[in-house]
């Protein structure tokens, strides 16, 4: 990857590595986590190999407690089924495990997200004549609905963090406030958005995402410029702790960098 490295002391890392490390830190040991493929899977496995060895990773292909020693390219990879505590059918994973409320954290990616954490993974442009057709919903709508809380990771840009979604694939906090409570949505919805520039936190009253932390080397103004809505900044905005040597070593071992 030709990406520019950030320097801090004796270590250097890429923006993507900072994002993955920050996302991994959100998972505490023993958490039961429903993991999407891509960035969420990499972050969840990084957590498992560093500070959270007993995190339980659930993949929608029916693999419960998967313990891959490399990053699986797809949710159907044999490394997931062969290292899982149990492998069950797809109807069962969604009905008995996700819908029944057994999963604490849902870890999702997004093509677009808005200030209330609603997610689009369906189309860019009009649904009937899209500019770009994206893969669609997959497991995300019900992951966003039924997990106790949701973490979203995506790269920061005004085209990704937008004022208005082209399509609501998965509901975060709707139009804000008590939307989830009023609509009877069981989980608490997206609580944290982790990008390659910053960490955004959901305001418990308005349900709007606020800038909570900037990654080392990133200015608040950079984050505001890369956000498609007028992002509010938390009073206690912090600087994210840089990746440790251990985190970077584990991550690079996983992704083969």
């Amino acid at each position: 990857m030709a990406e520019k490295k950030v320097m801090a002391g004796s270590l250097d890392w890429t923006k993507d590595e900072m994002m993955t490390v920050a996302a991994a830190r959100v998972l505490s040991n023993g958490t039961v986590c429903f993991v999407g493929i891509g960035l969420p899977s990499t972050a969840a496995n990084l957590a498992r190999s560093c500070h959270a060895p007993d995190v339980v990773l659930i993949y929608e292909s029916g693999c419960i407690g998967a313990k891959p020693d490399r990053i699986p390219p797809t949710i159907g990879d044999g490394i997931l089924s062969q290292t899982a505590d149990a492998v069950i059918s797809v109807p069962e994973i969604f009905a008995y495990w996700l819908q029944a409320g057994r999963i604490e954290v849902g870890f999702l990616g997004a093509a677009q997200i808005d200030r209330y954490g609603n997610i689009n993974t369906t189309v860019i442009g009009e649904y009937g004549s899209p500019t770009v057709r994206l893969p669609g919903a997959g497991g995300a709508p019900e992951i966003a609905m039924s997990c106790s809380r949701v973490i979203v990771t995506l790269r920061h840009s005004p085209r990704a963090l937008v004022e208005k979604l082209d399509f609501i694939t998965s509901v975060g906090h709707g139009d804000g406030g008590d939307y989830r409570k009023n609509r009877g949505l069981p989980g608490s919805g997206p609580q944290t958005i982790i990008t390659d520039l910053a960490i955004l936190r959901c305001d418990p009253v308005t349900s709007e995402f606020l800038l909570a932390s900037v990654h080392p080397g990133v200015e608040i103004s950079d984050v505001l410029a890369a956000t498609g809505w007028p992002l509010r900044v938390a009073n206690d905005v912090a600087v994210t702790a840089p990746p440790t040597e251990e985190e970077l070593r584990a991550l690079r071992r996983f992704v083969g960098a």
Partner: protein
Amino acid sequence: MARFCTLRDAVAEHIHDGDTVALEGFTHLIPFAAGHEIIRQRRKNLTLVRMTPDIIYDQLIGMGCARKLIFSWAGNPGAGSLHRFREAVEHSNPQALEIEEHSHAGMATRYQAGASGLPFGVLRGYVGTDLATLTPTLSWVTCPFTGENLAAVPALRPDVGVICAQQADRDGNVMMWGITGVQKETILASARSIVLVEEVVDTFTPHTNGVVLPSWVIDDIAVVPSGSYPSYAQDYSERSSAFYAYWEPISKDLEKFLAWMNEHVVASSDHAAFIQSLDPSLLEDLHG
């Protein structure tokens, strides 16, 4: 009792123009060989059903076999997009493709309802999404016991269900293991069914999470070694990452795509001939 026959005969017998056909496989045991045979026999106006349409559906769409797609996630996992699918949806090329899309949970519920002989299934889902307003096969019911409002989705009842499994025994019972997705529900929900197997064995060895489908719920069994290639069959073959990477630029370009499909799929008499037609570098993972 299931009949053992060639894949060519099974497709000719059961899959007709205009049918609703589900070739299932949740990124494992994907019935590629059956999709290729449908293309060889030039089926038209199919309604294709699949939770995770991938390259084989992209090929069916690009070769003009499909009129409509019912799905929940369309992509080329770990490698890129489905360019023929996108071309059909974004530019109606080679023909318009009607789409009916759900979430995975919704599709799984639809298959379960079909397998259960119920007219519809219920789930807690879709609230507040644009799918709820744009997908006609989605409605709401109130639980008569608790008053909870739930999503209702109609049963999927494909004309034909097609899956891959690892083994059949000589009586025509079928066993699969590893990630088994919605394959069991697909067979039970479909009016007719075709199962591709890697091999026939005298007796099954029990496997953790092995799923057995009895002979009498299956119409035809075709023995097609590596029938899931380039996807994988646990304990038989690995996924060919080389093929998935190789495929992306071919599928991007319509002329290249058509030339490749004609050379390797249409001109090959069957799946064994298709595999023989490929560059050996694409087959390195096959017996890994």
